[in-house]
């Protein structure tokens, strides 16, 4: 296992490690502030249009959301385990854990892709009247929608017929999906970056770059990955579980 390289401007490996870690935490801080914009937008609209959000949220598949939550939690677990393996110099364990993390992340993106394409086909998009369900032919959309979401025989479509729907509600549903796509899209970009980071760590691990004295990169990569998980932990109930 290789030793940590000490950059010329540091006095000790410990100082270098602490510095890198504080830098990562401050980067995570900026990430949280980044997402906070959309959380503020979400809160503002949810506070003023609770009904529309409740209505729109029913078009999201809770089971898929929960499955994605579990995938991210598992990947977070393996990422934390990977750090432990790196600290103890267990190369095989490290690589295995990183691999599971990547696979879970890919699974997450796969489910996300399924959800996005489903919504695209049904016109469940942003922008009120311009792109959304409400332009689509209700006769065509209806059977699939009934099939698509849980709640027994009674469809939300029956209580709110598209033709007679209040235009204000239509617009608010559009806003909900606008925020849904922005939030999950931004999160998805972070997952993709995370996959890149994990693959890079995997490549470095395969070349024996990490050891008990040199695991900073794994530690920081895992911190980033946990933050991605942390954001999703809040996104899931806020988007999928509005009842």
């Amino acid at each position, binding site marked *: 296992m290789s030793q940590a390289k000490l950059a010329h401007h540091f006095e000790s490996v410990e100082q270098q490690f602490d510095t890198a870690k504080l830098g990562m935490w401050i980067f995570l801080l900026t990430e949280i502030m980044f997402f906070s914009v959309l959380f503020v937008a979400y809160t503002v609209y949810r506070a003023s249009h609770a009904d529309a959000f409740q209505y729109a949220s029913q078009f999201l598949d809770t089971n898929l959301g*929960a499955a994605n939550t579990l995938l991210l939690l598992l990947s977070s677990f393996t990422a*934390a385990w990977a750090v432990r393996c790196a600290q103890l110099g267990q190369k095989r364990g490290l690589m295995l854990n990183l691999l599971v993390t990547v696979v879970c992340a890919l699974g997450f993106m796969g489910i996300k892709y399924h959800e996005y394409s489903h919504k695209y086909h049904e016109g469940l998009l942003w922008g009120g*009247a311009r792109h959304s369900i409400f332009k689509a032919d209700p006769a065509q959309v209806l059977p699939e929608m009934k099939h698509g979401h849980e709640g027994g025989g009674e469809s939300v479509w029956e209580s709110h017929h598209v033709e007679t729907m209040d235009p204000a509600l239509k617009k608010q549903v559009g806003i909900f999906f606008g925020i849904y796509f922005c939030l999950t899209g931004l999160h998805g970009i972070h997952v993709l970056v995370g996959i890149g980071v994990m693959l890079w760590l995997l490549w470095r691990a395969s070349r024996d770059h990490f050891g008990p004295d040199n695991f900073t990169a794994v530690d920081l990569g895992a911190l980033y990955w946990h933050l991605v998980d942390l954001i999703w932990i809040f996104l899931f*109930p806020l988007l999928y579980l*509005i*009842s």
Partner: protein
Amino acid sequence: MAASPASDHAAEHGLGHVLPVKTLAATFAALVALTLLTVFTGKMDLHGFDLAVALIIATIKATLVALIFMHLRWDRPFNGLVFLITILFVGMFLALTVTDRSQYERDIHRFDRAHPAEAPTGE
């Protein structure tokens, strides 16, 4: 891979703190249980407390991830402080903006009622 109490000592490896697999696995199990719980409570009608319950569960999960997976419990306290300060600022941002919006919401409705013709049509 058995967890040994000795690995609690950060000094053992100089840098950072090595977490036993048992702790990690227990945390993961708790997170999964809480996820199932939140899906379950999400399907119940909690008479207006749905959001509160969902957010409390999410906060507990986030705390577990931050304290254990992200090592904050054993890390330098300042890193935890950075995290807390961020949450504080997000809270401040949220509180002031939402306060304002909840206040001028009435102005929007008043305007819409007074000028039905000018209200945006959505086209």
